[in-house]
């Protein structure tokens, strides 16, 4: 079983998990109105961490200048520092893996960067955080838009179950900037007053800053789990395959994720008794469509009686930190037999009637569900339990069977590499670049006879990934008409969405020519490429995006085999490396199939691919 042994929240409210819980119990929030935050022309209602407070706390653990790290990194380091102290582990051990969850990291450095040139890269921040604690392993960045924090916890569970690690330090961190706020403003997604999750009068979300960390470990003997520990029973990610920014009207992806965590991990774990649920901690951003979508999914899952809350009225939407911060807050609440009331909400009126907890109340439940959804059509659900010493149900319902399945047999169906010079499909060059061409990706589109006008709206990274996926599936016989929950998309790169980030920055850089573009902003989330591929090919299983310093076939191999192991229903994964940076395209993608007779190791034996 996977359970937590330490956690921490650094937020504008308080600098510890418990401190944050107490502040929330007092009804506090640092969300407030700013006329021109970060020099923005439009006002916004946001929650900011005080720089000075972060620096003061940082100086107590670090002798050097506070200028060595960015605010996002310092907040993350503070959170990790506390969480590993509580966990009482040495983070420099080789069986500890660091996982960073963030959507935009140090993107504000695109405006002006006093650090080394690679500092805006997400992997660089992760590396600095892991190095701070002397950790020898290459950290993984999960950048899956708003679901990153939950996706990172699922990635941690996979690393512990299948990756041989004993401890996973999961940290989420996000700071705000002109870049992030202007983008959400261009989406008309922000409320100029306190957000009202699920309320009939809700009119948008508030953004917030925070960092939060959890240390997870694994032990298959339930008697080893400390009393009151938080157990990560199951997690699931499902794509809507519907739209890159709009939530599905039917809540399809979220419903699948909810049903999956309830159904149990595999045969070793029976279905979960939903009567044990104390509450569902929803995403509850207070946008019209998100809250409606969640209510549809919760209602379709027959959970309309379970109390539902949202924490956005206290912290705002803390983006990459949200999934972790809210999991910890929900844990604090359940430990204290409490359901936190949804601040800002008086008259819940989402599309489907659900049981929104508008005020704080008591509960005897010993489990909760954490839901989250975001750009790229991604949804995640976590099913968490608290290990009550008077409650042997944990042992009974988990069973004692090992959750270690056999390593699945995987075969490579097709492989596509796209560089600046050529497109190679299954070992054969299908088009080479005309040296004069400055429309290379469009040339490929025309050459392969693709008919998908949306292609021309995409950023370069999505164009390249979409072309590769198209080629991978060109000669494959599969169901193109219905959404396939047994197909997944798992991609990695080094530059996340920096190519498009730089483009977006040009739309806001000049105060006299300030026109933030929503169509450019939407692609500043690295995982949109997984969403585009999911939409194009109706893929409804997991969609994940990871950022690492450089391409490693071994690491890719590990991530996809973990994805197959953790999701026994999967038959196919479109996976690989998709990077676009400084005008340089580097794509190495594959279509994998599980359990067919002829097989070879992913990536390692490409010569065995059969055309």
């Amino acid at each position, binding site marked *: 079983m996977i359970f937590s042994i330490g956690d921490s929240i650094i937020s504008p409210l308080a600098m510890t998990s418990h401190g944050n819980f107490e502040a929330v119990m007092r009804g506090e929030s640092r969300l407030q109105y700013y006329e021109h935050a970060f020099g923005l022309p439009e006002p916004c209602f946001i929650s900011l961490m005080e720089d000075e407070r972060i620096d003061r706390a940082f100086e107590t653990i670090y002798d050097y200048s506070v200028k060595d790290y960015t605010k996002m990194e310092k907040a993350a380091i503070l959170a990790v520092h506390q969480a590993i102290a509580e966990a009482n582990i040495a983070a420099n051990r080789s069986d500890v893996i660091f996982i960073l969850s963030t959507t935009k990291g140090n993107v504000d450095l695109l405006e002006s960067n006093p650090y080394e040139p690679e500092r805006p890269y997400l992997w660089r921040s992760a590396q600095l955080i892991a190095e701070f604690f002397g950790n020898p392993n290459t950290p993984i960045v999960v950048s899956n838009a708003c679901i990153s924090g939950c996706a990172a916890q699922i990635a941690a569970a996979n690393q512990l179950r299948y990756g041989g690690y004993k401890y996973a330090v999961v940290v989420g961190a996000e700071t705000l900037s002109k870049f992030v706020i202007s983008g959400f403003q*261009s989406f*008309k997604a922000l409320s100029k007053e306190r957000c009202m999750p699920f309320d009939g009068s809700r009119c948008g979300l508030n953004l917030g800053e925070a960092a939060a960390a959890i240390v997870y470990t694994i032990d298959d003997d339930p008697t080893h789990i400390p009393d009151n520990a938080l157990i990560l029973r199951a997690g699931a990610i499902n794509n809507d395959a519907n739209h890159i*920014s*709009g939530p599905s009207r039917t809540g399809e992806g979220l419903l699948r994720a909810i049903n999956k965590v309830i159904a149990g991990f595999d045969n070793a774990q029976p279905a979960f008794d939903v009567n044990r649920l104390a509450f569902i901690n929803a995403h509850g951003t207070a946008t019209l469509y998100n809250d409606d979508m969640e209510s549809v999914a919760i209602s379709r899952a027959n959970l309309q009686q379970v109390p539902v809350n949202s924490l956005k009225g206290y912290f705002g939407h803390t983006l990459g930190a949200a999934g972790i911060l809210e999991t910890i807050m929900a844990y604090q609440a359940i430990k204290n037999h409490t359901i936190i009331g949804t601040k800002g909400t008086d008259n819940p009126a989402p599309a489907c009637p659900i049981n929104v907890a508008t005020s704080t109340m008591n509960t005897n439940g010993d489990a909760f569900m954490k839901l989250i959804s975001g750009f790229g059509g991604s949804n995640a659900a976590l099913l968490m339990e608290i290990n009550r010493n008077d409650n042997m149900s944990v042992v009974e319902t988990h069973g004692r069977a090992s959750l270690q399945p056999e390593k699945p047999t995987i075969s490579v169906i097709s492989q596509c590499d796209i560089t600046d010079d050529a497109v190679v499909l299954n070992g054969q060059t299908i088009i080479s670049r005309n040296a004069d061409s400055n429309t290379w990706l469009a040339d490929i589109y025309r050459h392969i006879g693709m008919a998908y*006008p949306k292609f021309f709206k995409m950023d370069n990274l999505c164009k390249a990934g979409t072309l590769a996926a198209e080629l991978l599936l060109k000669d494959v016989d599969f169901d193109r008409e219905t959404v396939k929950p047994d197909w997944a998309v798992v991609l990695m790169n080094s530059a996340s969405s920096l190519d498009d980030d730089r483009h977006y920055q040009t739309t806001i850089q000049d105060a006299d020519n300030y*026109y*933030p573009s929503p169509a450019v902003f*939407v692609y500043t989330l690295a995982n949109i490429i997984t969403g585009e591929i999911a939409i194009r090919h109706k893929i409804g299983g997991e969609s994940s995006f990871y950022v690492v310093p450089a391409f490693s076939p071994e690491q890719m191999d590990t991530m996809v085999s973990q994805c197959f192991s953790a999701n026994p229903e999967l038959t196919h994964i479109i996976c690989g490396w998709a990077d676009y940076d400084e005008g340089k395209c580097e794509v190495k993608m594959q279509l994998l199939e599980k359990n067919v007779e002829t097989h070879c190791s992913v990536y390692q034996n490409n010569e065995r691919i059969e055309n």
Partner: protein
Amino acid sequence: MEELILELKKEIIDVLNLEGMTPADIDENAPLFGEGLGLDSIDALELIVLMEKNYGIKLANANEGKEIFKSVRVMAEYIKEHRTK
């Protein structure tokens, strides 16, 4: 008016990346959303930017846009009346 309609069509093709389309392919009286050009909610937001950037017209939210973006002709009429640049 016809000149503004043509200019608007060119701008729409450009900012919404309607590859391969010419102004002649857009019927100024046909609905912009739903069938036809296949535009979505992000395109609507981008049209709000176009209105501000090129004509100095600020729209508070996408709902306001719904009425104005009914067709290119309706858009042109609104611009003619409200433009500040």
